[in-house]
């Protein structure tokens, strides 16, 4: 599980923490400012295609954008460690 980390989204910082719920990897994002906290996870479409989604439903655009930033962060960190 990732230690909490910080990303930059739309010019502002946001704190990300990882949790495991119902056997799923969930990311909780607390934005700096008035934007409401967001919870996202990776789900599967038919054909095993993976995609980011907000939980609960309704904030798909943010889920995709923030999800991409989280994936970039984790990938970069892994590369550093290799």
């Amino acid at each position: 599980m990732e230690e909490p980390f910080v990303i930059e989204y739309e010019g502002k910082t946001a704190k990300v923490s990882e949790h495991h719920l119902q056997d799923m990897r969930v990311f909780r994002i607390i934005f700096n400012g008035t934007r409401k906290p967001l919870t996202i996870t990776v789900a599967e479409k038919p054909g095993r295609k993976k995609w980011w989604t907000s939980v609960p439903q309704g904030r798909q655009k943010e889920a995709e954008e923030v999800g991409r930033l989280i994936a970039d962060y984790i990938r970069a960190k892994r590369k550093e460690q290799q």
Partner: protein
Amino acid sequence: MCYYNGQKVTRAEFIKLKDLERAVSKYDFLDKGAISGFTDTQVAVVVATPDKTNFDIVQMEWGYIPNYLRNREEVVRMRQGYKDEKGEWVEGQPQLNAKAENLFVSERSGGRSMFYDAAKHRRCLILSTGYFEWRHIYKKHKKTGKRLKTRDKYPYYVSLPEHEYFFTAAIWNPWTDQDTGEMVNSVAMVTAIGNRLAMWVHNSKRRMPTILNDDLAWRWISRDLSKEEILEIAATQYPYEQMDACPVASDFLARLDPSEPFAHAKLPAIDLSIEPTDEHQEEVAEVSQQACLF
């Protein structure tokens, strides 16, 4: 058929995400670490959306509350039992189950069943990963070897190995406490006459939940069905060859994983190649320990 956040997903994925929604709503993110699961008295119930093009997962109180009960006090009396005016004890009826054959006709009076309207208009599905059932084994007299009237109870966990989740036919009823105004949706699981596996495992009543495959489950909640069609689906016996029954610990409810297999000494084995008789349900001293069937 199912969409989540506008993306087409499988039913299993939809269910997973809906479960996760509930967990997220209850999770205190100030706490650290992981949570393995949640337990409460409510069950996850699948209902069709109003336009009947999709389904949603909601929570309901397990234990059907008929509308003739006025308040919680009367609900508790019905469920737990009470002393009548003559001082005689009236057994409690938790109404967890509704027998398929009694959806329209009352078992007691032979008149209209209290489930009638729900069976006709409020059919739903209880979402399950497995269920627990008790097998009763006769004791034998130590000296004479004769069968005694008393029986030991052994819990089993019954599941469908090929299905992470499965659907059980159910009916629901909206109920309002006339004293407090509390509104609750209560649900009863429909049961059918047991298949061979149920006859072995639930050998006291020989019944089983009405487990439905995806097609029948969707028909059950989304179509206007005749009484005959409802009774036919409600009486469905899921094929025993596609089910698994595993003995679990007697204190399984207190275990972290209640479905963990447990070997009970002296528990006679189940043989699905034959129909069970009472003789098959006796304690046998020197049998190999019962393990999972498959």
